[in-house]
Each structure stands twice: as C-alpha cells, then as structure tokens.
C-alpha cells in the first residue's frame, strides 16, 4: 500500500502541476475508491497534499517568473471571500441544480479548451497589466463565484480559475496554470488549518503522498516550460472533462 500511495501521488502531482490544479478532484477519489479511506479523513489529507503540490510547483513557477502575482492577488481575496460564503450557504441551495449547472459548464469549457488546443489559438495578452478594467471586474466577480462553488462542492478552485484567466482575461495558458497553482495553495492552506486543528488529517498518509507528490509536481512544473501550450490545453481539458463527469454522475435524483 505505501508503494501504491507514493506512485499514485507522483502521477497526481505531475498532472496537477501541468494543469494548474490542486489535485483534490484526483486525490480524494484515489484515497476513497482505491485505498478505502474515510471520506472526511480523505478530504482533510487531500487538502494538505494540495498545499504540498502547490508549494512544490509554485516554487518553480515563482523562480522562473511564470506567476502573474498581480492577477493572483487581484482574484484571491474575492475567491477566499466566496469560499467562506459558500461554506455558509451550502444547506440553503438546491445542490442538484448547482451540480448540473457546474457540470454542464465544465463540460462546455473542456470541449472548448480542447477545440482551441487543436486550432492553436494564441493568447490575447501576456500580462494582467494589459487587461482592461472591465475584464478585471468581470474576472473578480467570477472569482467570487469560483470561491462560492469551491465552498459548496469542496472542489479545488483551479478548474475554474484557469478558464477565468484564459477566457476572460486572455492570459496565456502557461501563465494561467502557474498563477492558478499559486492561488490554489493559498486557498487550501487556510481551509486545511481547520482540519488540522480538528485532528482529521492523517500524518503518515500525508508524508507518504508527499514523497510522491513533491518530485511529481516539481517535474511537472519544469516540464511546463518545454511542453507546447496546446498540450497543456489538452491535459487541462481532460482534467476538466473528468471533473464534469464526476459532478454529473454524483447527482442523486
């Protein structure tokens, strides 16, 4: 089992770094379905691993100047605010309707992302400094919604943040991936503190998973420089497609 944990974590770390996500949507099912972990422990442990993945990948991205800190800091406060609101309003919303809406949205974005990958569309801008005020305002509002859905569904924000940065702000896919990776770590860290204080995190599993995640995420972050943007889009589109199918199949009628 320890070898399976390390190997699985290596693959998840690599894909997460290349797609700009925390990896929660991959880690939680891996821990619950493949290894039989309790749901709450799996979520708490996964959140800690998201911090490790993000820190390993972001370290490389920050060093190479790939993270657009202006964009990250513009979107992060509203994402965090949305996450708190989401955690509070969870019970009063028709969750199935939201799952259908979000699942359909993810499905559309994944198809669109892969379509663009094959058509090789170029990014409109190279830095947030060139993004207009209207687009910045729209992106900030959508970041709040991203945080809201993150708080409601317990999913990582990366799958929503990358499309906001590429489609609304028009940033290049690699910048969006690096910036999203940095932001995901910040959001996950504040959530994980609560789980850690409640004692729900399994330290041994975190250590074993981190042994795989750290090299996986670092290699993924280094590989991002060499991988063509179209392949990054394909990986991200595939991850989004998986997330949408998970959401749509989790609906209880």
């Amino acid at each position, binding site marked *: 089992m320890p070898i399976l944990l390390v190997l699985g974590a290596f693959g998840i770390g690599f894909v997460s770094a290349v797609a700009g996500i925390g990896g929660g949507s991959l880690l939680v099912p891996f821990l619950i379905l493949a290894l039989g972990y309790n749901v709450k422990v799996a979520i708490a442990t996964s959140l800690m691993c998201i911090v*490790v993945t993000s820190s390993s990948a972001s370290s490389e991205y920050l060093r190479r100047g790939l993270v657009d800190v202006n964009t990250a800091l513009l979107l992060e406060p509203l994402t965090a605010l949305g996450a708190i609101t989401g955690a509070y309003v969870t019970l009063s919303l028709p969750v199935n309707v939201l799952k259908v809406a979000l699942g359909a949205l993810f499905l559309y974005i994944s198809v669109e992302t892969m379509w663009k990958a094959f058509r090789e569309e170029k990014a409109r801008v190279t830095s947030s400094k060139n993004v207009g005020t209207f687009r910045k305002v729209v992106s900030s509002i959508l970041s709040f919604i991203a945080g809201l859905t993150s708080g409601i569904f317990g999913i990582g924000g990366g799958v929503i943040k990358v499309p906001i940065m590429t489609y609304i702000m028009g940033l290049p896919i690699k910048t969006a991936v690096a910036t999203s990776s940095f932001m995901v770590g910040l959001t996950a860290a504040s959530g994980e503190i609560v789980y850690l204080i409640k004692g729900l995190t399994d330290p041994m599993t975190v250590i074993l998973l981190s042994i795989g995640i750290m090299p996986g995420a670092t290699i993924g972050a280094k590989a991002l420089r060499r991988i063509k943007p179209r392949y990054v889009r394909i990986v991200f589109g595939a991850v989004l497609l998986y997330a949408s199918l998970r959401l749509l199949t989790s609906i209880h009628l």
Partner: protein
Amino acid sequence: MRYETPSLILRYGTIAGLMMAALGEVLVSMISPAFKSLTYCGLGMIVTTPMASLVMIAAVHAIRHDLKVFTLAILALVIMITATIAMLARG
C-alpha cells in the same frame, strides 16, 4: 518578475515541515506518543508556508514602493485569516 526568496520559502518550508512530521512519526513509533506534537508542528509548518511566502511577496513589493500589490497581498492575507477564524468559530 522573478521571486527568488518567496520561491525558496515555498520549497524549503515544505521540505522542512515534511521532515519534521516524518521525524515526529518515527519518534512516536519508537519512543513515546508524546512526540505527536512534533508531527503536528511539521504539518503546521507546511500549511503556513504559502502564507509566509505571500508575506515575503508583500515585503518585496513594499521595498519597491509598489503599494498596489503590497495592499492586495495584505488584503488577501487578512481575508484568509478571517476565513480560517470564521470556519473555526462555525465548528
């Protein structure tokens, strides 16, 4: 813009936290369960590393008199800390 120091904090903060947690687990299994606190100190270090990196980014921009990014970084930190306290208070 390259951020060398925040990058180093992220890398070595995570590694140091993991090593401390691993050492704690080894000591718990070999000597005494009292060393569990060392494990949790390590995990705490991992969790606070991204925020420490953000503080360093804020400091870098403060030194360069870039008040806009500095303010945004501090605002993000305040909201994240408030969010954590709110979630803890909720139970």
